[in-house]
């Protein structure tokens, strides 16, 4: 699975730390999600979507073979 978290952050001009504080997770979590090492839960994905005011599918994209 891919994600556009970094792009969304850049659009909204927030740092990883600011996003982490807003969502209620650690900065390390944000970093590992952006690198694709960790897949967040549905709840966390929805929180991201609400924060960035975009649909979830715009942030998290399934790969062809997923």
């Amino acid at each position: 699975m891919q994600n556009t978290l970094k792009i969304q952050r850049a659009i909204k001009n927030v740092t990883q730390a600011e996003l982490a504080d807003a969502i209620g997770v650690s900065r390390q979590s944000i970093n590992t999600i952006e690198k694709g090492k960790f897949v967040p839960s549905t709840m966390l994905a929805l929180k991201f979507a609400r924060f960035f005011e975009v649909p979830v599918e715009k942030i998290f994209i399934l790969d062809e073979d997923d």
Partner: protein
Amino acid sequence: MIKTFLPNYTKKIAFALYLVAVVFSCIANVDSFVTGWEAGRNSARESLQKEKAIEKNISNIIPEKDEVRYTWISLAFSFTGLLMYIFSKEKVEDEYMQLLRIKALTWSIVLTWLAVIFTMTFISPLEGLYVLQFELVAFLGSFACLKRFE
């Protein structure tokens, strides 16, 4: 999911408890340390009888019954401190930290088994309480490494 019951600041209390355990352990094993030091200093050329004579000649700094008591006190503080630290929350406790805890738990089990097999084969059978203690320390070490490097 591994539950963490205690607030983050209890980690500092847990660390203090573990330091107390270390102090008591050192006090309880002063005689063993001195015996080992003296025996070792005489090197491999000395006979086994001479090593035993050295053991007898060294007067006990700490009486034997106190040694056992201090060892038990040390273990009690050690277990309390380690378990308190393990069950304390991180500053931000989220699902990623939960994942790291599960990975650390797996690693601690593997490391403990390896340590037990190694020591039983090459040294001597580990006493049960020290195995449990090692597993707790292995969990904390694995968790710290995963937080740092993963």
